[in-house]
Structures are given as C-alpha cells and as structure tokens.
C-alpha cells in the first residue's frame, strides 16, 4: 500500500470525496415486525442492521440494563471468515456500544428490565462502530425508547496536515491516526471517544472538531429520516387532529 495517495494535491480522497464530505447515508426505520424496534443504515459501502428487544426481567433494581450484541456477517469483509460471537473484536465493540447507549438512554425510567440491542454488520468498509451506533440510535427511536438525544458517531483522520472526516476502510488501514467520536449532536457532548495511532497533541482539537462536525451532519440526515418515518405513520393514524 506504499504508493497510495490518501489525499491528492487537488484535495480529493481515494474515493473522490473532499476532506469534509461524508459518504452517502441511506437509512430506514422499522425493518422488522417482530422486534420492538429496528433500523437499517448504509454509510457508503458499510451496511448495518440493528434491532431492539426489550423487557426481560433482570435485576438492576434502579435502572434498565442495556445489553448489546455486535456481530459481523461472515460475508461482510473481503476475506470470508467465520466470526463467532465471542470474537475479541466483537466483544470490544459490544462493550463500547453498551457504554455509549448506557449514557444516552434514560435508563432510570425502566427499573428491573433489560434492553437488548442487536447489531449486525452486513458489509464492512470502515466505520463499523459509527454505522452501528447510528443504526442502533434509529432502532431505539423506532422502539420508542427514551433517549437524551440522538447518538451520532463519526470518524476522522489526519492526512497531510488536514483532517478528513468519515474514513473508509482504505483510509483506516493506512496507519494514519483514527479518531472515533460518538456525540449527542445538539449539545455537542461526547459520549465515546477513541483514538489510535500517533497524533500530535496540537492537532487533537482540529481532528475532534472535524469528527464532531461529522456527527452533526449525520444527525441532520438521521433526523430527516426519522421525521419522514414518523409523519408518514402519524398521518394515517389520524394523530394530527
């Protein structure tokens, strides 16, 4: 991968985007009828399904237990590989997702119950965590579970002295720094933050800003999708009167 140019002189990235451009996002709510809530999201070539199921009786006396299960389909990457649930990467991801949503769900409203969040990556092209968070947020909204705000996640990197947003698989595996942020977009509060590889402290602020901006852009798209979905259903319900 030596000669790969992540950012051309003209300011274009490998897949033709500019530094501040997200990949195309398409999403849909309520894709399954059995689950309490579900959603599907595509961010570029990364495709993720999320489903929510609630209310098994578990013993956290004062709040709901948020449980996650993250898995990747065997066909999700170029190399076909069995990925049993216990896979280390999945476990780590599961734990991150749980923490993220523990902070965003109003957990004290449901004592003694449990919310299961299932996330399945159908196709992976970088930004699995981000797409998973975004999908799970939509699924939680679909399920009518109270959230403080949307949780939107976005990644960023730093190439040739310029921050780039929403990095894909090639950019991820280039060895450049990768920063992953999940935020509550309205208040810009950070729920989750992780960074790999080396980045000079002076640049941290710039890259975090880029990622947070990315989250806000993602939020706009998700919010439009949710509003469309809700209003479509609400009108047939006759709720407007």
């Amino acid at each position, binding site marked *: 991968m030596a000669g790969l140019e992540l950012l051309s002189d003209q300011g274009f990235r490998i897949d033709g985007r500019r530094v501040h451009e997200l990949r195309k996002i398409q999403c849909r709510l309520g894709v399954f009828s059995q689950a309490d809530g579900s959603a599907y999201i595509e961010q570029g070539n990364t495709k993720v399904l999320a489903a929510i199921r609630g209310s098994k009786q578990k013993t956290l006396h004062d709040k709901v237990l948020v449980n996650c299960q993250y898995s990747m389909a065997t066909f999700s990457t170029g190399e076909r590989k069995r990925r049993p649930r216990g896979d280390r990467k999945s476990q780590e991801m599961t734990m991150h997702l749980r923490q993220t949503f523990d902070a965003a769900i109003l957990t004290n409203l449901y004592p003694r119950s449990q919310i299961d969040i299932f996330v399945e990556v159908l196709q992976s092209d970088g930004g699995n965590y981000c797409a998973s968070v975004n999908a799970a947020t939509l699924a939680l*909204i679909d399920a*009518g579970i109270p959230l*403080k705000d*949307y949780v939107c996640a976005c990644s960023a990197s730093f190439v040739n002295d310029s921050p780039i947003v929403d990095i894909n698989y090639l950019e991820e595996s280039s060895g450049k720094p990768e920063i992953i942020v999940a935020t509550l977009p309205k208040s810009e509060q950070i729920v989750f933050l992780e960074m790999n590889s080396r980045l000079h402290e002076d640049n941290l602020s710039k890259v975090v800003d880029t990622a947070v901006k990315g989250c806000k852009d993602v939020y706009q798209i998700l919010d439009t999708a949710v509003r469309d979905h*809700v209003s479509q259903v609400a*009108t047939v319900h006759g*709720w407007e009167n």
Partner: protein
Amino acid sequence: MSVDIRIAGARESTKQLDSEEISSLVTPGDVITTDTGFMRGHGTYMEDDQLKASVAGVVERVNKLICVKPLKTRYNGEVGDVVIGRILEVGQRRWKVDTHSKLDSVLMLSSVNLPGGELILLELLLLLDNVTQAEVQSVFADGSLSLHTRSLKYGKLGQGVVVHLSPSLIKRRKTHFHSLPCGASIILGNNGYIWICPTGNEMEDKTGGYEQNLEPVQRADREVISRLRNCVLALAEHKMMLYDTSVLYTYEASLKFPNI
C-alpha cells in the same frame, strides 16, 4: 395459481407526505418548550430548565401536562384497560402474565373469580402459556401492572388465535369485545394483543372460561377466523386504527377475494 413477485423497492408507500405537515412532531433531544410552567409527562425530560423530547412522536398537551406519544412502544397500562395476556409463570399465589408492557404483569389469586367460590390449585385454573383476558386493576410504582378477572366477562380464553400488534393501533372505545356478524368474536386488547375466536363458546357460558370447551372448531369458523386475522394484519400493516367498524369493513371488503 398465479404468483406475483415484486422487489421491495417497488412497493408504494401508502402516502407520501411532507414532514412539515405535522408541526407538533418532535425527535429525541428537541426542545419542546422553555416555559417552566408545564408539567413533564411521558416521553419528555428536563434539562437546563428546558423541556425536551426523549422519543420521536407527536406532542400532546392536556392543560399543563405535556407528553410525547411515540409511534411504537411497549404497552403503558392504565387502570380499567382491557388486556389480553399470556401466562408466563405460575407462582404461589399469583400468575405472571406477559401483556407486552415493560415489566411482567401479575394476576393475584385474590383477583380471580374462582368458579364456585372454591379454592382450586392455581395450575388447574391457568396453565403456562394459557391466554387470559383481564382488566388492569392498578399500576405499581415501577410501571408493572396488577390485573384482575373479577367480572365474568374476563377469564381464560379457550380456542382461538392471538395477534400481536402495536398498542398504539388500538382505538380506545367503550367496549373492546365484539361479536361480529360474520360468526366470530374479537377482543381488541388495549395492550395490542388481539383475540379472535368463534362466537358462542366463550360468551355463552359465563363461567369465566375455566371450564374448557375442547370440541374441534368447525372448518367454516376457522376460515372466518383466519380471514379476520388477515384483515387485522392488513390494517396494521397500513397503520390504520383498529376498532369494530374498521375491522368489519375490512372483512366485508375482503370477501371480494374469496381465495385469499
């Protein structure tokens, strides 16, 4: 037999609407009001003196109380609601019942009309997985429900089918039991569970349903029940409210297609 296949993308949505049409639509994190004179209802939370939405849905205002009603949610019980439930667990003096609410509901032995006033072993009354019809007696502090089957209207349900739908699709009416002219009865539980059974065997003998009728249901009855079930599902698919008239109209309309 003709088969018609469409890809998912070709499906037409029922109505294309501009989301601007509903002004009171909010999504999580939206500020509903900064006026502190309001009371916080379901689907909202307070932060920095602002009342914000925690779910996506339509804002409803009753006097000073503001709540947001989400599209889809678990059943939030209210006293007096008619519910259909499934027995999950038989305990010492109570049953645990699944009513599609966040926590399991309980049906105390003392809240059951015992046939003949005798004390019978719980297991004989309601077994695991039996379907029961009950009324919400009270709501506990944590949101779980206490049920009762004190009236002869309520009790165990015998032969029929349950349909699980979103509770928000059930229209609140005076009565939720309907004996439809097509030869079947339907109970529209407020919790989104719907029971369809042949007319006659449940409603006639007012024993609370604890004496079970195990006679096979006639084929004609079964066909009517299946058709009704499909009608209910069709209505739900299109997010239409369910009540006796809507179900009946759908049923009548469906008779045009005898082979479905």
